[in-house]
């Protein structure tokens, strides 16, 4: 009777599964993401692939941009090698689930830092990498001079963003009717805008500037002067993992601090011989700044060597020599009237 074999086989299977189960359950003690990343030998970084200047995938399959550079920075901090990154393109709607599900280690994707995202969405945020605000862009021939002129207009934006809600709040505040139409990604928003489905588009000012700068005819668009919200853009990662949070945080801060103490990718190799104790601590020659969260003492030097200081990153992607040419304003160093201020690395 073959049923007997089946029965025996099934019993054996049960036993095997049971033992696997015990192993599985035993292994579920939570590790820091840092250990996972180190074991894997590669950082998996969630980025935008459609926003020139921040995160963009060119037709040769190469990622570039401001956010992408910070991904490289984190890889340099962990491995001392900026090339050890796999990029995962994420839509606005998919970015939080990518962290929740553990698909990516960290997301640098022009994301606004808010309390509800920090509190409920199941992610934690790193330091702000870019201070932005929400703007509105119309066609050059539009009659609208201010946002309130857009009463009754259709405004497009992408789904699952703070901008979707801000536009609503602004309409309620000013007693104006905005018809908000949303699409899953900003490419579709721009396509609908170009075809006349919407009278205006709204997103972070930097996003609008990037879209305008890379358009075939930039003069066809006009960005309205007002900014209707605060949009501090910051990286985020899984919740309650302070070692991993430290790594991301201090990678960003190292670039800001490097600008303050005038260390750049060009002079950092020569700086080893410096006698300035601040620089010596930054380079890990003195003290052991990175050891506390599981990195090497010279992690900050690795970061700056790989991607440069904040100014270099900014100029490379958004600065006057690029198509975007966005003035630094809030994103300047505190000594030049901006908001960037890094705690000391010591």
């Amino acid at each position, binding site marked *: 009777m073959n049923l007997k074999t089946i029965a025996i086989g099934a019993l054996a299977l049960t036993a095997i599964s049971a033992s696997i189960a015990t192993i599985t359950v035993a292994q579920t003690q939570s590790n820091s993401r840092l250990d996972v990343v180190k074991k894997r030998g590669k950082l998996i970084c969630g980025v935008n692939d459609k926003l020139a200047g921040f995160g963009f995938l060119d037709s040769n399959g190469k990622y570039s941009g401001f956010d992408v550079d910070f991904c490289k920075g984190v890889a340099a901090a962990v491995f001392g090698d900026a090339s050890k990154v796999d990029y995962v393109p994420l839509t606005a709607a998919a970015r939080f689930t990518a962290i929740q*599900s553990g698909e990516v280690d960290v997301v640098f994707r022009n994301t606004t830092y808010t309390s509800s995202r920090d509190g409920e969405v199941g992610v934690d945020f790193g330091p702000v990498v870019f201070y932005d605000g929400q703007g509105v862009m119309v066609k050059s021939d539009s009659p609208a001079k201010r946002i309130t002129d857009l009463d009754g207009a259709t405004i497009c934006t992408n789904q699952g963003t703070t901008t979707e809600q801000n536009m609503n709040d602004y309409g309620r505040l000013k007693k104006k009717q905005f018809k908000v139409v949303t699409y899953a990604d900003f490419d579709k928003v721009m396509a609908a805008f170009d075809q006349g489905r919407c009278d205006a588009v709204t997103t972070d000012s930097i996003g609008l500037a990037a879209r305008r700068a890379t358009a075939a005819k930039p003069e066809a668009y006009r960005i309205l002067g007002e900014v209707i919200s605060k949009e501090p853009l910051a990286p985020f990662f899984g919740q309650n993992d302070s070692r991993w949070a430290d790594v991301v945080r201090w990678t960003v801060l190292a670039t800001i601090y490097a600008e303050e103490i005038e260390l750049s990718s060009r002079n950092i190799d020569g700086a080893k011989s410096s006698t300035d104790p601040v620089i010596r601590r930054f380079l890990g020659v003195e003290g052991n700044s990175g050891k506390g969260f599981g990195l090497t003492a010279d992690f900050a030097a690795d970061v700056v060597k790989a991607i440069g200081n904040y100014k270099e990153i900014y100029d490379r992607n958004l600065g006057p020599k690029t198509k975007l040419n966005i003035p630094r304003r809030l994103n300047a160093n505190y000594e030049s009237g901006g908001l960037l201020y890094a705690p000391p690395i010591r």
Partner: protein
Amino acid sequence: MVKTKTDPVRWLKENLFSTPGNAVLSIVVVLVVGLFFKSLLEWSFTKARWAVIPANFRLLMVGPYPLEELWRIWASLIAISLAAGFSWGTSTREQPLPRAPFVLLGAISLLALVWQFGNPSGTLVPVACAGLVAGVFIGRAIRTENRIHYFLWTALFFVCVILIGFDFGRGEVPSSLWGGLLLTVLLSVVSIVASFPLGVLLAIGRRSKLPVVSGFCIVFIEVVRGVPLIAVLFMAQLFVPFFFPPDFPQLDKVARAIIGMTLFSAAYMAENVRGGLQSVPSGQDEAARAIGLSATQTLFLIVLPQGLRAVIPTIVGQFIALFKDTSLVEIIGLTDLVGIGEAVRNNPDWLGVTREIPITLGVIYFIFTYSMSLAAKNLEQRLKTSN
């Protein structure tokens, strides 16, 4: 029906103007269709910017796959051509060699040579065509058993997957760089192959006399068939990682899409296979039991082979549906054929190009699905006559 040469006037009278009503209908249809084709032709020859297709052809075919690793794709393609030729050759060994396909292949090679002269595709397309032809002759020359095809294609499947993704000294090609038609084909082939055993198991389970087993299978099948694929894909993206221990190696987006599509496809496969199993006359089952085969032996040696044979055309039909359905991964952010098409359509360099891309994508899908459905019809006919 005997085909005789009728004069055109009579043909028109019989087929278009048989009754006054029919005559009016014909004239109206001619006018409407004429107008449609006139505007279509006008648009496609004067307004359309077809240059967007050749300019982005590589993207549409393989997405962001790195240029320096493209040899992997070519190698797979040539291997597949050889194998396809071989299978074709062996299965048509008894028949005279038809001429039309060879003329077509020659034309394609010539076209590639002239149009892409100097580019790799200019030389590699003819090589692939030559591989196909070589395969045909090898297949006709060698005496083989039918079983070799199963081994050949299974082996080829793994070889291609390894070739496309794995590390050969210069690093692997991560799945985030697979795209375009390549990703579409990979997703659909891998999912249908993986869903086959699962579907067969579910079908057997559903027929089981044990109420617990059949109940479980029925619930799984009906739940999956009751929800849209896009919901299954989102669930797979979202939920799958939650079911693995935290330090389990992360499954990438493509892998999770495959898991979703496989589970989805398995439920439909189960229903198709069940149809096939039901079509096997109960006399077969009884006869097998009568000569002393056990229940398991009867199932695997008698019922299943006959049942599966009967549903091969249906499975091809399901593969066609799945091939079309892979387009949904665009919504979860993968760069399959549709995803890349959308990226190209939204590229500021090609502002105002709206119809050209969807039409081209439609044509590419049509070529694949229509030829597969022709193959399915052909197969059905052959199975009918051989029974």
